[in-house]
């Protein structure tokens, strides 16, 4: 699915140049669940942005099914994101003036799906996350967990091949966190998604197939795990 070769991303911060991702090589297979851990400021979110085509590497190549993301024009990248990649953010990032159904609908706008087909997919997505009865609620009328479910529905309504989640439970309480992770795991299994999840939480990370740890821009992949087992 993904092949990263010598990927570096550096920024200018004031007088200093920061290498958020530093010479990273990585292969993520299709259908794999990779959890990325690490301390704040070590490049986890930058890696996620590069995988999602939201940013371009300073050096190296990122291939998604053979497509060099760094070499694509912005409109092509936008199109790839619209079709192939779903995002879930820590702060949910719902449009506050739109209802749950309308927020899910925003993901279908770029695909040009209209009419009955659109409505059916929105209903199915909300049903999949257990919010069919909350379709008309605004984000302010939903709990944190419910808002994150809406965000997951928005990410999945377009049937992407990749789901990138950046601290999806970072703003949630423990019980809700578990619910959300369980939902993500269920959807990953059911749909064969390639799931890359950034988290601080080791408990969550252990539920993934592989765990990678970002340290100073470099990623170290641990051996394949099974849920509940300590990292080697």
């Amino acid at each position, binding site marked *: 699915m993904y092949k990263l070769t010598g990927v570096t991303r550096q920024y200018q911060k004031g007088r200093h140049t920061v290498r958020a991702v530093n010479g990273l090589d990585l292969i993520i297979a299709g259908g794999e669940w990779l959890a990325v851990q690490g301390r704040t400021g070590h490049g986890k*979110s*930058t890696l996620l*942005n590069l995988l*999602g085509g*939201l*940013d371009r590497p300073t050096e190296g190549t990122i291939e998604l099914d053979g497509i060099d993301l760094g070499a694509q024009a*912005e*409109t092509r990248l*936008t*199109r790839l*994101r*619209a*079709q192939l990649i*779903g*995002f879930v*953010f*820590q*702060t949910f*990032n719902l*449009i*506050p*003036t*739109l209802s749950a159904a*309308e927020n899910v*609908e*925003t*993901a279908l*706008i*770029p*695909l040009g799906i209209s009419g009955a087909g659109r409505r059916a997919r929105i209903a199915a997505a909300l049903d999949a996350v257990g919010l069919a009865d909350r379709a008309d609620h605004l984000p302010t009328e939903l709990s944190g967990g419910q808002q994150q479910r809406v965000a997951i529905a*928005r*990410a999945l309504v*377009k049937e992407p091949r990749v789901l990138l989640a*950046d601290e999806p439970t970072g703003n949630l309480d423990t019980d809700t966190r578990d619910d959300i992770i369980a939902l993500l795991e269920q959807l990953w299994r059911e749909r064969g998604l390639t799931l890359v999840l950034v988290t601080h939480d080791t408990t969550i990370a252990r539920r993934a197939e592989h765990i990678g740890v970002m340290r100073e821009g470099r990623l170290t992949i641990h051996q394949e795990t099974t849920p509940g087992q300590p990292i080697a």
Partner: protein
Amino acid sequence: MFFVTYLRRELRRRMRQAIFIALGLALGVGLVVTVAAASAGVKKAQSGVLSALYGVGTDVTVTGPAPSPPKPDGTSKNNQNNQNSQNNFGIEPGPNGQPEICTSNGKCISAAGKTIDQLTAPYSGISASKLAEAGRLPGVTAAAGGITLTDNTTTFGDSSNSLPQPSSFTLDGVDTSKLSLGPLSSAALTSGHSFTAADTDAGVAVVDSGYATSKNLKVGSVLTIDQAKFTVIGIVRQPQASSPPDVYVPLTRAEAMSLYAGSLNSEVNTIYITAASAADIPAVQNEIAKLLPHATVTSEASLAREVTGSVTSAAKLANDLGKWLAVLVLIAAFAVASLLTMAAVARRVAEFGTLKAIGWRTRRIVAQVLGESVAMGVLGAAVGVGLGFAGAAIISAVAPTLSATVPAPSGAFSMAAGQAAGPGPAGGVPHAPGSTSSHVVAVPLHPSITVAAIVLAVILAVAGGLLAGSLGSWRIARLRPADALSRVA
């Protein structure tokens, strides 16, 4: 439709800001509409004054030069052939101080108990051949001759030692075959009927309504002019700003009377001309000036320059101050709308970054922002047009009546009490050639809102919204999703 739903919800979310922006645009637009209405009203008032002065259908008026003053021997260059004219006399004080009527050959009689009726002409004559030539000039579609005269009647008392004031009325000879040109073209008939082509040499007259009232004349009344009888066949009213003659007679009859008016000799002293188009008027004026180098050639434009008074000041106020004030307010409204829109876009950076992340193209997001701005512009236009109507109504209600001081040419020769003159063709004291008197006309101001002004208002408001949206959209176009999302994190 998702676009409209998103737009509506977003405007509702920041309703106060949206209303503020719309009101700002409305204020600028309302001022533009009000100034345009006031300007249109003033132009209409000016145009009314000018068309009243000028007459409908007449583009250029040509008048003969002012007659030269009489020489000390009683003759003048203009009427050396008219030694038998009834006007060849003067009034002089007699040996006992009482006024005497003296002819050019020096014979004097007492003026006591006598009535003197004199016809004078303010302009010298223009020959029939020159009139015909004027009608054939390029750019001229019609030309009609006319004669302007003044009838002065002086009645001396039996024992008066001083010169009495003459009573006078003005008289125009009208070409009855070309009534669409000249002084009767803008007159409205109030009773009776106007001239027909058959009245070319008839002893009939049409009388101005003001003169008819003052002299208690009506249709059927009989006027005596220069010892000839004229039956009143119609009474007309001219537009307020004009200086209409008191009496109109057929041109042929006026030509006959003008034999004795001193400076005329079966000629006309005015030509009324219609040009083929407004663009031809300057060229026509030039051609006539070459044909008649001593004549005075005027058009509506040149007459407009002579009109003064508060109507002119109001025109300047509307065109200069009003226009620039409206422009400044609009610029301010555009600036405020732009700043507020850019601030709103800044607050929505995370929202737009998310939309870009999930696959929205920049132009789709830009269209959404522009749509919101245009919606505010349309709202501003609607309110602005309403404000414009209100402003025009206020101006109409509270604006003082304007005044226009319009030129009114007076006769070159007229009796002046107490001033003696030698025997001569016309025993009066000549005014300086070309001098005019003037009178003040009240001109009500009625602002009028045209469709063009409303369309302009809508365009300006929508343009303001588009400008504001464009500046915000420029920011969106430069937005990198990763940067936008990092601000949320």
